[in-house]
């Protein structure tokens, strides 16, 4: 498995939508390299014949009646939003103007 470097962290931070300054990127790269190194034995633990477990206690086909159930009112849904208008979430520009 590849080691994690500063460029990787910068790319990952972008994917995860977390702005990071140079100092943070340096520190995070050092710390993550140690952590990634310590977990790498995991990839050698199980053979190809071992099935993956995604869920500790498997349940299948958990359904409910297809009727309107417990829902928030518009007012409740917007109550914690940083900005709202006309019964909707208000966001800054989606696209950068060029």
């Amino acid at each position, binding site marked *: *498995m590849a080691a994690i470097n500063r460029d990787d962290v910068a790319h990952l931070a972008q994917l995860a939508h977390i702005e990071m300054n140079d100092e943070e990127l340096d520190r995070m790269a050092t710390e993550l390299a140690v*952590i990634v190194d310590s977990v790498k034995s995991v990839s050698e633990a199980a053979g190809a014949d071992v099935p993956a477990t995604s869920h500790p206690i498997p349940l299948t086909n958990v359904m409910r009646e297809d009727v309107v159930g417990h829902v928030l009112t518009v007012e409740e849904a917007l109550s*914690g939003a940083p900005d709202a208008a006309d019964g909707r979430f208000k966001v800054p520009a989606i696209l*950068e103007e060029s």
Partner: protein
Amino acid sequence: MSASELIRSSAASMAAKLAAGEVTSVELVQAHLDRIAEVDGGERGVHAFLHVNAEEALAVAADVDARRAAGEELHELAGVPIAIKDLIVTKGQPTTAGSKILEGWMSPYDATVIKKIRAARMPMLGKTNLDEFAMGSSTEHSAYGPTRNPWDLDRIPGGSGGGSAAAVAAFEAPLALGTDTGGSIRQPGAVTGTVGVKPTYGAVSRYGAIAMASSLDQIGPVSRTVLDSALLQEVIGGHDPFDSTSLTDPSTGLADAARIGNVKGMKIGVIKELHGEGFQPGVENRFNESLELLRNAGAEIVEVSCPNFGYALGAYYLIMPSEASSNLAKFDGVRFGSRTLPAEGPLTIERVMGATRAAGFGDEVKRRIILGTYALSAGYYDAYYGSAQKVRTLIQRDFDAAFAQADVLISPTSPVTAFKLGEKLDDPLAMYLNDIATIPANMAGVPGLTLPGGLADEDGLPVGIQFLAPAREDARLYRVGAVLESLLEEQWGGPVLDKAPALASTAAKEAN
């Protein structure tokens, strides 16, 4: 009975006093609010609470007293107060998850466990401190400052649920709710000399617990006695259609199991890999004493081996951050929580999101999100997340083999006693090692309980003993836990918390 004696009682005995009319719920709640005012605040306070819910708690208490006086039949725990870990959403009280990003946020709905607590008419004293989004083993990663261990105010109370454990240990509440993803109920229980239980995955609804790692998270009880945790799990457990991972099993028979009072013929498996090397000598000594007591009480002690537990920590630190990075994507500065604008440049949603998450999340949260994003990225998924999921299968197989030889398993809960505040803050790996004995239960979904096993010789600090049972066999934990608790208390001449130092009043100091 004086207020200071009253708050040291168990929840079960508080319930009995309420039923007998020896005390009112208002008196009981007020005694706890007074205790919180006395020891929780100030520079050297315990700081277990992020929010105190005095007005509502007293109103619920007064309502219980009126109903009781009118002869209404009430729930056994009606009028007994409880503290809530601030990861669980509550109407009428802020929910922060210990994060700046949710500072002051008010949930528009109640978690299912909160609805059940309201239905039982248990007054909620407030919301307890935690590592940000439950990520940590010391409560030092809270954005609102650490909680202090009532046994030694310079030491950590464990984490992430250090607030709930410390509140119960400091007699600020008889009961609390916690959440346990890798040990966040059990490890704080161990280092504060209290009881905590991670129920079987799905035995208690997670609807309204802010998710960290959905395939591992579990809500559970925190208390000072095994019976109290059993009573609380009966209140909060059971099927919930709002949580599709919820089991349909009823949450009954747990308090009865705690009252059985014997372990004759029970087979108890000592997990070879979870004691000895890497465990503090005082922890090991108390652990061996507990084994001896159980053996003398008629249990059969056998050794079991779980060879794949050695991979559990590594697999956990791939699965948990992967799931956390997805779950925390919802904190985007649009739907709830804070919004931070970038200092310069164009104001697009993407840049606002980046600035919001940079300002709102602490270091540990950022570390786990980046690690999870890495483990889930194309080209690494199979080697990381995929391999870790295979390790989960191996751990489940280890448990299956162990439970073929034993009814319950036993280990120390934490390899060490409470360490000093700040000691492991700059070493994430050292911090992660605290959960080595608690993580396997989350990986396999099996239930686990911690109870105090005494004090370590070298530092006089509490040691936790952990029991593990097969999935859906939570009752076994309460049975064996209550027996060991009574054997130990007989030896000590009272509960372990009687040996904790008295807390100085921080309220008085502030007035000086």
